């Protein structure tokens, strides 16, 4: 029995018996639908968290030296108190780290504060995420301007009051105007706009387009650095391979400066995208587990339904089996015919499930903030699983069919 012939026969059966096929395949279809939907959503969230969040928020191959982690989850009161006892990260610490780093590493100090903005055109409005940073910060965070320019080392060294602003800030404070060269006041300190950043969107509720950046040594530091607690030092390794080494250098510098005994734990935090993503990875693990185990249960039910239907099909077609055997079909021919039929049926159900799953994932992505990315491997896997379920479910009925006695089979009506 050629494969193509058997597949064609199975598809003809589906076409003739639409309603029966629908009920036969609904288990597999729904299971595959949820499998695809969950995998797509998890995949989408992964991409979102790992690329957008880690990339924009922390930067690639980048670690933050901070007093305590910026991204916190499940912090105990005790830990919180310990963090509060930690010494501040000072400009001297930051400079010492810089001096210890190799020349190809990028380094930046930055400070952040939520501030009020105003211009000659607009008063008030939403809070602005005001940052004071050294110029390499732009390169580390991959921040690019669409208009104007970023500030230079000289401007930072001189403490020039220039500012690079996010798109939302530009639109809000300079509506329908060219912002470059105009004055933006942050908590009433005037800055001259020299650049507008490209649009970045929102990462975990953080409106990055409401960001403004001024040189670290400008007036901005008087707003941000009020309590002599440096928000953080960012270091970017030139390659993933160099990353751990640089983190080690920073750790040693800081431990030495804080005069820590080898047995004492760090009293500062080195935060990288990997450490921040740890929590997400845990969530993801459970999501993937739930997203695969639940459809797997559905598939078992689907397989039982298919097995049942195939047993009915074998009973209904006993005479056909007898005829085929009388014409020279061997056991393996009959076995193959029913296995292919069952696999085709099930794979067809899985294929519909893939379509519905993609639609569901896109639907969820539309109506909720959850993103969706359909992984091509999940489609291949789903159809493969579908066919596999069909083969497993069809094995028993097919083996029964193949063992029928041709004389008795041909006598049945």
């Amino acid at each position, binding site marked *: *029995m050629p494969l193509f012939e058997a597949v064609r026969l199975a598809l003809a059966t589906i076409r003739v018996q639409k309603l029966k096929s629908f009920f036969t395949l609904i288990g597999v279809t729904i299971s595959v639908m949820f499998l695809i939907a969950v995998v797509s959503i998890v995949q989408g969230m992964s991409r979102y968290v790992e690329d957008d969040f880690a990339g924009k928020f922390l930067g690639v191959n980048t670690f933050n030296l901070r007093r305590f982690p910026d991204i916190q989850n499940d912090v105990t009161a005790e830990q919180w108190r310990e963090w509060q006892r930690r010494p501040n990260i000072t400009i001297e610490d930051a400079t010492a780290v810089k001096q210890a780093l190799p020349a190809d590493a990028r380094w930046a100090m930055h400070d952040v504060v939520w501030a009020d903005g105003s211009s000659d055109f607009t008063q008030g409005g939403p809070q602005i995420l005001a940052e004071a940073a050294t110029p390499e910060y732009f390169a580390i965070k991959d921040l690019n301007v669409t208009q104007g320019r970023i500030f230079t080392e000289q401007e930072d060294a001189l403490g020039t009051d220039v500012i690079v602003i996010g798109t939302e800030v530009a639109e809000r404070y300079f509506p329908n105007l060219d912002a470059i060269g105009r004055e933006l006041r942050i908590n009433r300190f005037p800055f001259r706009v020299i650049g507008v950043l490209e649009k970045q969107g929102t990462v975990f509720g953080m409106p990055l387009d409401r960001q403004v950046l001024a040189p670290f040594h400008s007036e901005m530091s008087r707003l941000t650095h009020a309590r002599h607690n440096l928000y953080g030092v960012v270091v970017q390794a030139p390659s993933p391979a160099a990353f751990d080494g640089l983190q080690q250098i920073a750790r040693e510098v800081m431990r030495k400066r804080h005069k820590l005994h080898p047995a004492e734990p760090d009293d500062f935090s080195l935060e990288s995208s990997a450490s921040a993503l740890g929590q997400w990875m845990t969530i993801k693990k459970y999501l993937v587990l739930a997203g695969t185990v639940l459809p797997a249960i559905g598939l078992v039910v689907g397989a039982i339904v298919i097995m049942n239907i195939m047993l009915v099909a074998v009973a209904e077609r006993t005479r056909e089996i007898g005829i085929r055997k*009388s*014409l020279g079909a061997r056991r393996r021919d009959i076995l193959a015919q029913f296995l292919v039929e069952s696999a085709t049926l099930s794979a067809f159900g899985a294929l519909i499930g893939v379509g519905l799953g993609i639609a569901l994932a896109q639907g969820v992505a539309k109506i909720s903030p959850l993103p969706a990315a359909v992984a091509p491997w999940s489609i291949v896997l789903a159809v493969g699983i579908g066919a596999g379920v069909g083969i497993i479910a069809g094995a028993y009925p097919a083996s029964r069919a193949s063992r029928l006695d041709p004389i008795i089979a041909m006598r049945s009506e």
Partner: protein
Amino acid sequence: MNQQITEAPLGSTAERQIVVGASGQAPDSRWVIVTRGLKRDYDMGGEVVRALRGVDLAISRNEYVAIMGPSGSGKSTLMNLIGCLDTPSAGEYWLNGTLVSRMSDDQLARVRNKEIGFVFQTFNLLPRATALHNVELPLVYAGITSDERKRRARAALERVQLENRMDHRPNELSGGQRQRVAIARALVNEPSILLADEPTGNLDSQTSEEIMRVFEELATQGQTVIMVTHEPDIAAHARRVVVLRDGLLSSDDRREAFAAKHGV
């Protein structure tokens, strides 16, 4: 030489045993079928039914033989054994010089595919397949390529004058046409024997005559035909008539002798 033998049907058991030869020896190549002491017992819920009780039969190439007998005589059992659909409880069955009575299921399937063309009372066509596809089926299991299958199936349908009914399904064909599709299917693999089981049982007398003419023509062309029937006037179409009674051969006559005995 064949002629000589086929024209001298075998009267007594002793004579038959001389022709079929000694057990275990391959029979002379002129015999397409040789059975030696063929027995078949059925276990019917503890009670053993002896359907065949030792049949010695030799059929040569190009013969047109009818196997007759009342119901319960064992003719269906004999036909199943000859058709390799069943294996005997005891005795030997040589088909085309090969001992098939000891073969496995799958080996028998190959023999059915290559050596035997069945024509059944109830036609046994696949209802969902066209005439052409039904005729192609044995070639599918013989592993013939699609183009070659179609070519040979068309040729077989032309042989039974159904070339313009190829794309019809069985329910779109008359009884006689269905049986001719079945004959085409039986012939498509060029089998050693055409084995017909009550081929006219479901047909009116006019259509029966039509089918008998097809068989007659095939026999004239040199096809070995074995036909199982309980109707003497159908059996009388064959050139030799073997009668079974209670699981044993009771007579083996040429057509003329048979016709004289039964007045047909």
